């Protein structure tokens, strides 16, 4: 479990759980999570695979700059999950291609 339980300075509000699906599997995070932080807390580090080399991809900057964490969210590709707030029932999938323009 990667959630911080005790911290000398900070407290984290874990009163509201948010459930969502990742590649068909149900996962729970908390209100205030990004999709990336909820996945990471659940032990998911691989968020996709490079469209050409197939190598695994995770987030790098966590502030929406680098674009390493692109996933398919509710069917929409290329969502930067490191800055995408987690909402109840969202459907998250790993992305392994460039995604199509909708």
């Amino acid at each position, binding site marked *: 479990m990667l959630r911080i339980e005790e911290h000398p300075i*900070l407290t*984290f509000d874990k009163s509201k759980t948010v459930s969502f699906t990742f590649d068909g599997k149900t996962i729970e995070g908390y209100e*205030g*999570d990004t999709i990336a*932080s909820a996945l*990471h807390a659940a032990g998911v580090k691989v*968020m996709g695979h490079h469209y050409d080399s197939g190598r695994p991809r995770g987030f790098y900057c*966590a502030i929406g700059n680098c674009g390493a964490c692109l996933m398919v969210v509710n069917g929409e590709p290329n969502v930067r999950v490191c*800055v995408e707030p987690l909402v109840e029932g969202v459907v998250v999938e790993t992305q392994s291609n460039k995604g199509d323009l909708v």
Partner: protein
Amino acid sequence: MREVDIAIIGGGPAGLMAANAAASSGASVLVLERDGHLGGQLVKQTHKFFGSEKQYASTRGIYIANILEDKLKEMPDKVEIWKSATAVGLYEDGILAVAKDKAIKKVKAKRFVVATGASEKSLTFVNNELPGIYGAGAVQTLMNVNGVRPGKRVLMVGAGNIGLIVSYQLLQAGVEVAAIIDAAPCIGGYLVHASKIRRAGVPIITSHTVTRAYGNESVEGATIVGLDEQWQPLPGSERELDVDVICISVGLSPLAELLWHAGCEMHYIPQLGGHVPVRDGNLKTSVDSVYIAGDITGIEEASSAMVEGRLAGLTASASIGFKHDDYEAEVLDCKEQLKSLRAGPVGEHINQGMALVMSGE
């Protein structure tokens, strides 16, 4: 189209201070923030700030963001804030294109203060894009904003202030730090931070770099190597470290895309972190309507970003007729604060870099 006296791009420490200064000078202000909240990277800085009282020294960064936002809320008739709004283009006719609510909105402003901050640099080594390799700021966000540990055992690459501070924050979050390494022969960050880390039992190994990450789907270990005086790898000095996270803290680069687009004269200045705009002492770029503040002027700390924000807010407003009641004294005070923040050995390379992009006044 939204019309405003001053559009401020970026709601971090520099942008918020600029907004405050411009609004108290009488200008109407629109603040554009890409994220869903204001404060920029202050929101994850749990350490107490250095500097002087004017830069909120001894206050934790996480609280400074709220202080600055509250001040703006006192001037609701002057300040409008758009969150989740990304500036995507700055055109020569003074129009800013902003992506918001899945549409492009136009903002026409007489002056722009670009305070977009910086992005984390990467480092070249084998498998450097494996999941589990994160920027130091990313680790800070994950831990201090979301309450999630990056992993169990971390190799920190870079012993500057960010590397040292984030290492300490990792310990606070209950994560083991295997070592902090730095390619330079000495520690770049403040001694006070380094001592704290060493007292906690974390080795700081200088003249070392990372050459390889290994692991299938994510990091399972790292190879580090010693460097000689020419920064070349010393044969036979390789060591394997059993870590599941490699944290990269090798500096930042200014996020200057909008300035390039606006046609500002740019120069590559290594001391300042990358390409930065030519500016005058009032933080005006080579384009008359475009001012700058914060890391985009050159990589420094949030303390100087706040002072630059205040300065740019004052000078940009004055240039269109909104002169603060105490304009001369306020501007002088900002310049004096910047001078004092850049005094001493740490500020030396900043001053060198700034001299190379300073236009005549």
